[in-house]
């Protein structure tokens, strides 16, 4: 089927500002948006630039705005988008080139919540024990692929540079509710600060945007409740 892709283009070496450019491509209905982008890059315009790797929604490289919503280009099929598809880079981060944005601030926020297990010495033999129920408490937030779809869908993130954003909170949640972890107090203190969870306005854009179906807003609320009731 013939589809028009309206793609926001920007080359910092030559363009004063981003502008839309249209491409008409012939795609299979079951093609991914990524396939359509590849078709343009490989056969029409080699300068079109975006990140991609695994092609099936697990590496987190190709989050972008597709018809106004944050999506992974490799997880959305052309048949679900209509004849005219608008593709833009994620909002809120500096555009590096075309659909590719500067991810440094995103990873800095992620690192700021201490996203690693903090625990005393491990047992000298065997594993730390954890019941299936305790394991289930943080299962949802282990699915995060750091694609930034949630953080760049959040209006609070768009207007403030210091909000850690939903993705960082999701990754803090993954450890706060892990029975093996002993760093919760520290993480909760970070998330109780001016850049933390209280900036969230419960808009649910993050939950809508998550390509892994993580209940992001719910995870943020769980962290808020842990702060209010001082227990996890």
């Amino acid at each position: 089927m013939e589809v028009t892709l309206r793609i926001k283009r920007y080359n910092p070496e030559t363009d004063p500002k981003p502008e839309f450019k249209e491409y008409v491509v012939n795609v299979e209905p079951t093609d991914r948006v990524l396939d359509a982008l590849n078709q343009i890059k490989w056969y029409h315009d080699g300068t079109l630039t975006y990140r991609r790797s695994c092609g099936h929604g697990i590496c987190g490289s190709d989050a972008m705005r597709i018809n106004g919503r944050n999506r992974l280009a490799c997880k959305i099929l052309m048949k679900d988008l209509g004849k005219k598809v608008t593709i833009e880079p994620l909002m809120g981060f500096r555009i590096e080139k075309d659909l590719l944005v500067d991810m440094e601030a995103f990873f800095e926020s992620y690192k700021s919540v201490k996203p690693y297990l903090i625990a005393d010495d491990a047992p000298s033999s065997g594993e730390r024990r954890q019941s299936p129920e305790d394991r289930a408490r943080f299962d949802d937030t282990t699915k995060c692929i750091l694609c930034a779809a949630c953080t760049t869908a959040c209006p609070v993130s768009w207007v403030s540079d210091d909000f850690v954003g939903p993705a960082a909170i999701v990754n803090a949640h993954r450890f706060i509710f892990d029975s093996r972890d002993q760093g919760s107090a520290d993480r909760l203190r970070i998330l109780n600060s001016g850049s933390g969870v209280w900036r969230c306005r419960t808009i649910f854009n993050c939950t809508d945007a998550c390509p892994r179906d993580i209940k992001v807003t719910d995870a943020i609320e769980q962290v808020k409740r842990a702060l209010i009731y001082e227990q996890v």
Partner: protein
Amino acid sequence: MGYHRYDAVIVGAGGAGLMAAIQLAGKANIAVVSKLYPPRSHTGAAQGGISAALGNTEEDHWEWHMFDTVKGGDYLVDQDAAEVLSQEAIDAVYELEHMGLPFNRTPDGRIDQRRFGGHTRDYGAGPVRRACYAADRTGHMIIQTLYQQGIKHAVNFFDEHHLVDILFTEDGQCCGVVTYEIRTGEIHVIHAKTVLIASGGFGRVFKITSNAMAGTGDGVALAYRHGVPLMDMEFYQFHPTGLYKLGILVSEAARGEGGIVVNGEGEAFAARYAPTLKDLAPRDMMSRFIYQEVKEGRGIDGKDYVLLDVSHLPPEVIDQKLPDVTDFARVYLGVEPKNEGIPIQPTAHYAMGGLATNIDAQVIRDASSTPVPGLYSAGEAACVSVHGANRLGTNSLVDLVVFGRRAGRHMLSQIQELEFLPLPKNPEARAVEEIRCLLERDKGERVADIRSRMQEVMMDKASVVRSEHSLLEAWREIETLQKAFKSVAIQDKGKCYNTELTEALELGCMLDCAETIVYGSLERTESRGAHYREDYEARDDKDWLAHSMVSRSAGGMRLEKKPIVITKFEPKERKY
């Protein structure tokens, strides 16, 4: 140009690279180079599990794991390495758990384990639960956990740096790498005492593959260009259950949990070929069974695919243990696995071959195992060899944590003794020239045309079933494409995120990998594991119970045989 000096530089931030980095962090000055962001690495796509004989749910022993690995690899496995793999797997899995990896748990809180293809109790008596897992996203959890540890240990990451050369002194000692910073187009020379190539595999040489687009064999090919031989390149694993036409992996865990593969007549045909293990026969065999069914007209509607059926499993098993892979079927094929079969076909999945190493992950340059000083390799880029002619499911994750860890530890021991060697004159010259040529050429061949032709040729003529006829055709085609590549031209001439340039560089590397796959396949006149020759159907232990080491010089290509290390298990016929 940037110049940096580190005790160790690790190329590739997947499981092997990060596992090595964590051994070195805080004890040596190290850098980790990745052309992606580390958590994007392809380790994250691994699904089903990581095997270790923990015996948490039923009796198991590392000797059984070792035996399965050797037999699964059709006796081409080096048994000293398989012993290390299966013994150290146990401790490595515990180490991952201690780092925070969220494994699924048994009711008493231990790491849960499940069945996987080719893993057996009591030397082949029946299936065993050996695969430790985290739903069907075990690789995702490994890459996340190791990246988290990298952050904790303040590892120095060179994100989005593309490897463009490996540096050697005149007498062949490795002394650093050259990278191309994708964001700026700047060249960086990283001078190092030790270099670890953990840059992964090269499944993208085939048309249907489960591999990420980044799987282009950069580190393997660049070492090969410097005369380092590649080992066992003819052994390339096709995973039996890739989504039809897309190649996206549907984990063997689907069959481990009870899924079956059925043909166009509704028959669960695996039992006919492998009466004991049935659908849990090793991957090389399952892929050939499917090939045979399709060839004899028993594909679905006579087409080139069959169905993976999990619809008889309890819905909660599907939701809790196979959530991601069943979601792939829904998203990409519009199939609901709870009600209907998933269309599947074999997909290029894993390179058993690569840079030959010893059990300390040092790259070796000849059949007598002489190390290349300073150069290491681990993970899919390497060939230890623990996978032999066919890797067992879950053993790739075991390989990268066990040998990534050994690489890091050995590098650490060497760093204290080694001095920085002088760099060659103009160390960046070779890479700069390659890039300059690509940028300055205005008209020429298109990258995508050469790449898609290569992928078709490799799929049609050098995949699940091969013959001298098909391989000679492939050889001529790859030669032609190598020539065409010399006149490739790109449109993007910029410095900022020139990903058209990096795709061209990757194509060059893939062509070198393809060349060695075809050459090794032609030379090996037997069938063993994943290498199946319809003109030499039998395994030939008299002539070919040996690794192949392929190298290229001005005089052309050459193959040297390297003896297999046999310690415990004498080669036998492989039946399941």
